């Protein structure tokens, strides 16, 4: 009996300890959940602030914070200050759905921003759609995201365009005819991008010599690499996130494969070069803007970001930043800050001049904008080509 009791006590202690630890992580995510006041505009934010893609969420959040700070410092929007309610999705699509419900019902936000990963945005979108709350994804590029409902928007380009642009870049600009693909089968972003690259590379006249997938939280890619090595491709399309690409590139070089790797915006991270070492030398990836652009909007943003966070911003921060300003524009266009007015306003955004280029929201609630191909050399990234939506197809 005493044994059983002490066992129960121990289990209870463990449970309490783990709840305390988990709760500890969550608390950091939830800002003030003050009740809606007339003088405030509540924007819900759901991002991967922890977990394997934590870098995505944190850099996006920085961009959002910077924009909100700027707007509030200059008197808010029509005299109303922006209040952020942010939630951590812990890099999990199911968690995105859970926090979306909390934002929609408990926090009653007027508009939501999130997430970076398409899988999360697709899970969260129906929740906001049903609650009548507009959602703006800063950087989810999978086409299905905005198909979830007529209140779901985004301010980035789409994977079909990104895949087409990468295929055109590899085939026309780099002159490669034989490509291999490695992608994450259980990830909407990676799978979608692979699909669009595959079909457009073939349509251009190229051959896909090997097409391999991996699944789950893998950190070694030896077998996938052996398969691709045997097919001897000229270029390898690897539409994965930054946490994987360094390890994938290392495995390729370890098996003597020298063909350049090509990827999408998921590669982007301050940690990219460090995790990959020199294995990504001479490789290419698509990016949302050109950091060397002389445009005053871009330079002003870069300066403000460095001053506030003391680090180099990335495209995710820029897209987070643009998402907030697009919402501001929508509030002005829609004539108010209610969910319906913001939705109306977002539909009317045309020729919006953001950090990530000038874009309009089309009838499918997607942003039409260019993609910038960057080349990795040493620890630097250099612009190789800007591809406009009109360049492909």
């Amino acid at each position, binding site marked *: 009996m005493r044994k059983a009791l002490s066992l129960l006590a121990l*289990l209870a202690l*463990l449970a309490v300890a783990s709840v305390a630890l*988990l709760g500890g*992580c969550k608390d950091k995510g939830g800002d003030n959940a003050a009740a809606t006041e007339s003088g405030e505009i509540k924007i819900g934010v759901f991002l991967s602030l922890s977990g394997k893609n934590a870098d995505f969420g944190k850099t996006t959040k920085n961009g959002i914070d910077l924009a909100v700070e700027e707007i509030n410092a200059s008197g808010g929007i029509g005299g109303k200050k922006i209040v952020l309610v942010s939630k951590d999705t812990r890099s999990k699509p199911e968690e995105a759905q859970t926090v979306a419900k909390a934002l929609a019902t408990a926090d009653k936000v007027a508009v939501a921003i999130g997430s970076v990963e398409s899988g999360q945005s697709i899970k969260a979108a129906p929740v906001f759609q049903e609650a009548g709350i507009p959602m703006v994804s800063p950087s989810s590029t999978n086409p299905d995201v905005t198909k979830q409902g007529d209140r779901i928007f985004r301010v980035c380009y789409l994977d079909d365009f990104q895949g087409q642009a990468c295929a055109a870049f590899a085939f026309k600009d780099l002159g490669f005819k034989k490509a291999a693909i490695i992608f994450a089968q259980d990830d909407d972003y990676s799978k979608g991008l692979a699909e669009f690259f595959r079909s457009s590379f073939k349509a251009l006249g190229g051959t896909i010599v090997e097409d391999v997938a991996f699944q789950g939280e893998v*950190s070694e890619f*030896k*077998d996938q690499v052996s*398969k691709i090595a045997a097919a001897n491709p000229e270029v390898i399309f690897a539409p994965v996130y930054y946490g994987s690409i360094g*390890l994938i590139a290392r495995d390729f070089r370890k098996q003597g494969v020298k063909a350049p790797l090509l990827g999408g915006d998921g590669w982007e991270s301050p*940690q990219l070069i460090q995790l990959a070492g020199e294995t990504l030398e001479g490789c290419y990836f698509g990016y949302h803007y050109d950091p060397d652009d002389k445009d005053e909007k871009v330079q002003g943003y870069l300066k403000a970001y460095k001053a506030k966070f003391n680090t180099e911003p990335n495209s995710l921060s820029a897209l987070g930043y643009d998402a907030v300003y697009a919402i501001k524009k929508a509030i002005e266009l829609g004539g108010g800050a209610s969910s319906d007015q913001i939705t109306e306003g977002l539909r009317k955004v045309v020729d919006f001049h953001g950090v990530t280029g000038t874009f309009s929201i089309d009838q499918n609630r997607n942003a039409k904008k260019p993609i910038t191909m960057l080349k990795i050399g040493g620890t630097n990234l250099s612009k190789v080509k800007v591809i406009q939506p009109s360049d492909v197809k």
Partner: protein
Amino acid sequence: MAEVSLTTELLQYVANGIAKGSTYALMAVGYTLVYGVLQLINFAHAEVYMLGSYFAWFQAKWAGYLPDDKGARAETVPIGMVALFVAGAMAACALVGMLIERVAYRPLRGAGRLAPLITAIGVSLLLQYGGQVVFGTEPKLFPTFAETRVYDVGGVKFPNTNIYIVLTSVVLMLGLTLFVNKTRPGAAMRACSHDMRTARLMGVNVNATVSLTFAIGSALAAVAGVLVAMDQPAITPLMGVRIGLKAFVAAVVGGIGSIPGAALGGLLLGVSESVVSGLWKPVYSEAVAFVFLIVVLLVKPSGILGKSVREKV
């Protein structure tokens, strides 16, 4: 570059599989040792492995072998320092292993088999999530313990990291087998595994022997953690989950309680995964490998080298 022949390609998968399998084997020994002595599945073993690579990481960081600037690249750590870091990680993990046993398992010894099993899962989760709080969730770049070199033997590529993994695993497994069979503490371990009560009556210090078992298993997990991090230099608090599961399966298939069984099970799992990847598709590798292992267990439920008699280690 000439077309790669099918045999060369197949040999490449076998080489990949042996490298993977060796780490499974090194981890599987930890499960098997503890099971042999306590009939307990120590689920926290996978997290000790994770801690092993973090302990090595911290030492390298303190010694200044990690770049501060995010753009810079890590320099190669000299071999003497590598040995020091590995020894440090082994010692730290051995302590952690003994601590886990003392705090979470010893109070429940004799409370049946289910209770310690649940505690083991609890400790495992505690370390996974505690690790995320303490170390952060973003992948950490593991320092360069050896400059990557690739040896090409007739078209089959052998990266030096894979060679280190296999050699280290073989040496440690042989050493462990000798230790268990030829030394007095090893004899004490075997005695406890046969019958703990009788061993105590014969004057064996059971608690010390159990602590030693945990220390050895955990030190081996630390080595596995460092070896894998050398090959895949991005470490995260959840890195133990997948390999832990596989090593556990390898231990069961090889015959839990048997050290050569753990080695065999690990290699079998690694090689079958790689060969399935090669001949079919990498995404099916785990499913097919596990089906194969289920078949093995159906034919021989005690595992390949396991004895159906209740006799362990």
